[in-house]
């Protein structure tokens, strides 16, 4: 009898635990998930869906300009596979050491609504880590 009770207690505990974790995960998924997009994919989306996204691309060789008022940078982000497709990005904050033309970067932020010439406002700007590894990438 007591064994049976023990087992059902485990089941109840498991149900409670999974319920709690499920709730946490569900709320996390509904509030903290964002689109992970390449530049070309972002360009193909309607701008109202681009309020909060993470975008991957390469820094274009031309158009890099440091902001005059405080740390930050404006640049053109081009698609990794399709350099013709670009998005203008404005980022205010500390620019990573490894940021330069040709590096792959990840930006998080959103596209302000209105106008096709809008500038992507990046909250974060991350460059992909060791440049050495990228060489390997190309060979492979």
């Amino acid at each position, binding site marked *: 009898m*007591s*064994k049976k*009770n*023990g*087992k059902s*207690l*485990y089941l109840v*505990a*498991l149900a409670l*635990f*999974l319920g709690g*974790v499920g709730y*946490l*995960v569900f*709320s*996390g*998924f509904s*509030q*903290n*998930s*964002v*689109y*992970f*997009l390449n530049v070309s*994919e972002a360009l193909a*989306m309607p701008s109202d869906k681009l309020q909060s996204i*993470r975008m*991957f691309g390469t820094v274009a060789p031309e158009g890099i300009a440091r902001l005059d008022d*405080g*740390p930050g940078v404006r640049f053109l982000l081009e698609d990794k596979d399709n350099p013709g497709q670009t998005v203008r990005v404005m980022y205010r*904050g*500390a*620019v990573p*050491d*490894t940021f*330069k033309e040709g590096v*792959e970067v*990840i930006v*998080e932020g959103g596209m302000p609504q209105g106008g096709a010439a809008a500038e992507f406002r990046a909250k974060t700007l*991350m*460059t*992909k*880590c*060791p*440049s*050495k*590894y*990228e*060489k*390997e*990438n*190309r*060979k*492979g």
Partner: protein
Amino acid sequence: MHLSAYLLLVASLLFALFFAGAAAAQLWQGRSTALPWIEKAHLMLTGFMTLSSVVLLHALVNFDFSLVYVASYTDRALPLFYRMTAFWAGQAGSMLFWAWCVALFGVIFAVTNGYRDLSPQTKLWYWLFFLAVMAFFLLILTAWSNPFLTAAPAPADGNGLNPLLQNPGMIFHPPLLFLGYGGFAIPGCLALAQAMSNGYGREGAWAGISRPFTLTAWLFLTAGIVLGGWWSYMELGWGGYWAWDPVENASLIPWLVSTAFLHTSVIESRRGKLHRVNILLMALTTISAFFATYLVRSGVVDSLHAFGDGGVGRPLLIFILASTALTVAVTLIWRKDDAKPLSGIDSREGFLVLVAWVLLALSAIILVATMWPVFSKFWVEKPMGLEPAFYNRVCLPLFAGIAVLLSICPWLGWKGGVRSMPKLLAVLGVMAAVTAMTWYTYRMPMAALGAGAGAACVAGIIILLTTEAHVRRNNASLAAHGVHLGLALMVLGVAFSGPYKLEQEVEIPRDTTVKLGKYDLRYVNLYEGEGAGYIFIEAELNVTREGAPVGVLSPQRRLYAKFDRQAYAEAATIFGLGDELYATLLGVDSSGAATLKVSVNPLVNWVWIGGTLMCIAPFLGLGGLRRPSSSRDEDGDTGDGQEA
């Protein structure tokens, strides 16, 4: 010479394949005559791999740029130490290093008493699995990730080692992880082998025999993860120790699964229960190590660390899927008739199971969340991913939950009931008081609960060690309590340094002051200088706290000769067990105005102190195993203390 090193790897591959086949054939025929040959074959194979590693090392040390690998990761200016450690700077080298570690672990295991006393059948199964793993490694090394590719003509100089890796802390982060991943191969293969040969009860239990390997691997893995966090905090100048990047998550998954195993294995070795669960968890630990590599190396998920594919992604994935299927099949087929039911959930057994649940839930969540950009493609047209905020929201409460369980567990009996009500109440009192206090000041429920639970664990372990003499005498329980104390300190460190960190990014001219909480940071001077292979500029910041001098921060910005156009920030800190002051120099303009990132990190050093303790304490448990007594009473490790 390079060709012969490559041929040695090919020969090792053939050896591994042939003798894995031989083991299978012997099992089929019900004989074990070839066993000595298989053992010798593994020695041979390890010898071959050692030789090819020596060749690679020799090439690295002697600037042999005809090897693509050497040219890619070293140059003539690189000091000897970093030339040697460039062994694991790239994919091919780190694969070779990992495989070589696994082979060496295999040799060590084969000379232990535990191995010698196994039945021939179990040994054959073990070699079948182990050599299959070796063959897989060698296939990767010979087919997709060959460290001995040559270039003709050889370049005059190499590309140099990434400056981020030119740091004594960082250079040991990858090999520690690989040693951790590698060490789990032995217990993983042995668990499956003993299940297949049905050797339970007729020979030493696999969990006990392979325990030194499990613990060693766990300790290396923990050290690797902690070192990685410290490096990202100090060296990268990111100011944060954990960003929930896919690569970081990848190393956490094997850690979580193996930690869950350590807890359920206590129930098996002390109480003779949960055999099947343990086989599954151990094998999954081994597989998750491969999965971690897959995540890092395949480029399946876009990450900050662009290691690139190099073609190993697909074979790794196939290997992972196949071995997971095998593991699940073995655990489903295998039965043990005399398995006893678990005690009630309000017992120490119950709590160990709960901890394992939480750890496994964490690993499953992190796995799914990290792979979400891949999974979500099945039902939405564009990939969705998860922000770091997701992990903080979902994982931190679970970690706080672990700390709560950990503070209560030592006071429960194995079969149920409370061992000492006054002590339990004292611990709960500490938890309530600290939680209430932090809640009152900061209003952050999770941070408050984490702080309370962390403090309660520390208090509980101190009470336990001072009042219960038998705990102090038992090395295995001391090891467990040491690890738990380390974890509690880490929980405290994270609970304070995470939410209560003050940070500012400023651009200021000389002789101006930034205010950060109670601290004033005054930017007084700018220097230029030269170090080994780099030039630097350095800002000098005088720090005062409410008028009283605290110290000087000198963050640097370095330009390495080989990596021009790329500056590296060298963070500066003023160490403190309470608040740690932290500064990175992000840039300087022509007028001498500096862009600085400054922060105050409360209790952050307890994360490193706790982490170090977690890596050191298991040694006590290893020592305990050398005592000449049966394996039964030596495994209180990571359980919660020895109960009379």
